[in-house]
């Protein structure tokens, strides 16, 4: 292989690829390598950890086509430190030589034959849809915070893509809170797939300004995201997601409209005093006084309470984990939110005032 490529493009692609490559400590050495393929005017970089894979295409001038694999992190860090100029990559057997200006190094690699094959997706069998990158990013960020990292419950470590009444929704839950967002207004096919959270995080990290749309392909065992010169493929989690719609309270009577920024501030302050007792804070709505207050249960540190004016039609009180409330509020869009109470022990529902497509539920703490 002999190929010439611009340093900044290569560095960026290698950076993304090295995030996906397996760490060097784990198992098969070739999985921590990146596969480089020179193909006329394109350099293709591929890495996989056998749970997900990323493929990046970089424009380049190839004098001689060929393939090789080398340790991804080493190559990425080396290229990142090179001057912004053309980089020349050549290979001989299982050795890769990279040179730019005064820098030149040779890295020991492994022949590409041993690199795992990536699963293919039959586009005729797959469900395919396109989505604007900004909408994708916003929606995924809104739900991903509610997902769990408890690997004993695999279904909850992912985001559930599911169709309901003709729309595609994404949802995540860790058993204590739940976020649900309408993702695509209309989809033609039925989708039920749990996408690993880390794959979605990788997609979001890979989004750059010049991208416009993400193409999503789903079949029964994998999902692929195509955006610009990047392709990320992940396995789906083979488990069944709880029938979460049953858990969303449908007609709360006590819905309070609140300013998001103000509520975040009040929650943060109360959380300071709630450190001793696992972050539990009390949210209380008082009809007669027309206030919504957030307070920490008195502890050794002292106590705290903060209130804001609000239109309240029913008294209500609930104890929440301040971290969950902050996560939910941070995920909501700026401006006004609604905070719906339905009793001391019923879940709280947080929504955006502006749009109805996002629902965040927090289970209260028993006090």
């Amino acid at each position, binding site marked *: 292989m002999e190929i010439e490529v611009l340093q900044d493009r290569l560095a960026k692609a290698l950076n993304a690829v090295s995030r996906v490559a397996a760490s060097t400590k784990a*198992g*098969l*050495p070739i*999985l921590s390598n990146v596969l480089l393929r020179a193909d006329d005017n394109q350099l293709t970089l591929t890495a*996989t950890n*056998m*749970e*997900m*894979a990323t493929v990046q295409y970089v424009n380049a001038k190839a004098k001689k086509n060929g393939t090789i694999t080398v340790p991804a992190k080493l190559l990425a860090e080396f290229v990142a430190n090179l001057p912004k100029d053309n980089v020349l990559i050549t290979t001989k057997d299982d050795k890769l030589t990279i040179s730019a200006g005064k820098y030149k190094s040779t890295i020991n690699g492994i022949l590409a034959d*041993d690199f*795992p*094959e*990536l*699963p*293919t997706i039959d586009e005729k069998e797959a*469900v395919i849809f396109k989505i604007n990158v900004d909408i994708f990013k916003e929606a995924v960020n809104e739900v991903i915070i509610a997902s769990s990292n408890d690997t004993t*419950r*695999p279904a909850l470590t992912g985001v559930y893509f599911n169709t309901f009444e003709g729309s595609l929704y994404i949802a995540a*839950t860790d*058993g204590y809170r739940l976020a649900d967002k309408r993702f695509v207004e209309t989809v033609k*096919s*039925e*989708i*039920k*797939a*749990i996408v690993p959270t880390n794959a979605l995080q990788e997609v979001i990290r890979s989004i750059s300004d010049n991208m416009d749309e993400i193409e999503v392909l*789903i*079949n*029964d*065992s*994998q999902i692929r995201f195509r955006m610009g010169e990047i392709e990320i493929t992940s*396995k*789906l*989690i*083979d*488990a069944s997601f*709880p*029938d*979460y719609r*049953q*858990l969303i*309270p*449908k*007609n*709360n009577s006590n819905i309070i409209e609140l300013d998001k920024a103000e509520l975040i501030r009040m929650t943060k302050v109360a959380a300071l005093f709630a450190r001793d007792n696992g972050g539990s804070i009390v949210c209380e709505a008082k009809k007669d006084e027309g206030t919504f207050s957030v307070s920490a249960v008195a502890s050794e540190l002292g106590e705290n309470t903060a209130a804001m004016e609000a239109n309240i039609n029913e008294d209500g009180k609930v104890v929440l984990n301040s971290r969950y409330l902050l996560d939910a509020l941070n995920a909501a869009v700026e401006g006004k939110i609604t905070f719906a109470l*339905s*009793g*001391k*022990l*019923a*879940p709280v529902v947080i929504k955006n005032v502006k749009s109805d497509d996002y629902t965040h539920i927090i*289970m209260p703490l*028993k006090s």
Partner: protein
Amino acid sequence: MPNEWQSVLDEIKNNVSEMAYEAYFARFNFVSNNDGILITSVPNVFIKAQIEGKYHSAIIDALNSSNYKYKEFIVIIDNNNNKPTVKRAVEISPDNTPISTFPKKVTTMASMLDKKRLSVDGNGLNPKFRLSNYVVGSNNDLAVSAAHAVIENPGMRYNPYFIYGGPGLGKTHLIQAIGNEILEHNPNMNVLYVTIEQFYHEFVEAMRKKLDGFADKYRKVDVLIIDDFQFIANKEKSQDEFFHTFNELQQHDKQIIVASDRLPAQIATIDERLASRLMMGVPIDIQMPDFETRCAILKSKAELLGADIDNKTVEFIAENVRNNIRDLEGKLNQILALAELRGVPPCELIDDSYITQSNIQTKRKTISVRQLIDKVAKYYNLSSKDLLGTSRVKNIKTARQIGMYLMKEELGLSTVEIGRELSKDHTTIMHGIKVIKNNLKTDFNLREQITDLRQKIYTS
């Protein structure tokens, strides 16, 4: 079998590097080998790609040198394949391909893309509604026995078959089931299920585009099933069209099945000719199921969902949800979902405040005797004093007896207690309750009123 599989794995181990073996084959498991179809499992699609790609020939060699006899080799994805159990059904193609032309055909079993979603074919029937999964109780036994008569001889007896009852009591299930059963008995019959809304929209469309097919479509069927008939209110043109369709079908002894949430006469602006025709068969109402029936319904739903549920939970739900079956099912789903989410058995959730306090009103609304009397009095435009008094005027007397009946049925009071409340002897109360019970068997209006009253007691 496991020993043989171990020898296959050992053979593979000899041919690939140790690292590669660890990475790709550590969780390559044997699932089953039936009729020459060898099924194996791997944890995910990436590993599957290796097994079916690069290492395919190595595996085939290992298999061929083992004792396995097989025609087809299938790799499935199973997350939990450390304990190889076949939980889900595997679709297997029946073709017997010889070993030499080893097929690369692979069947996946993940149910992720649910392509089989409730297929509603051209006839509008959903095959999941059957009589076999319809729970019969005292609330609907009449409707079901008439349904059997219709299924056996469509168009002969009970034509039209007209059922009515409040929302969520299983009308749709029943009429869909009739359609499905008729089709099973007579596959050549032309069965059509539509809601009156669909009928109306198609009719409007046909008028607008001046299409001719409309009348034909409906008049050519052998069994016409109409759901949500009450929505025909205020749609006069559709009523006309339906009336003619009805006549045409009935003259040719075609079966007509109608479900509505009230009697035809109670539908606003309904054409009298149509109303009387619908009453020609026997209108049958579906009542709220009693406690035992609710338990039976819950058990059958749980079975359908493949969920494990104990009697305590079933009784808890049945005790607390009495409005309609849809809510009953909703509550069941909710408890099962929460149990799955928390990873605990459903019975542990009974005392869970989330279930008892959540927005679906599960708790039986506690209502005092006085409130009940007020409600009954108000319903009949009387004052509570009338009910508590001694007037023998017929309508007051009947309202009083209904009050007695509801106190017994809904508040669970004894006749002595009711007697004390109404300052009457307990034998008078017993008589009053008996009168209502007897009349309920024949008097549609009374049933209607009692259903209404119950709704009022539990919802307002």
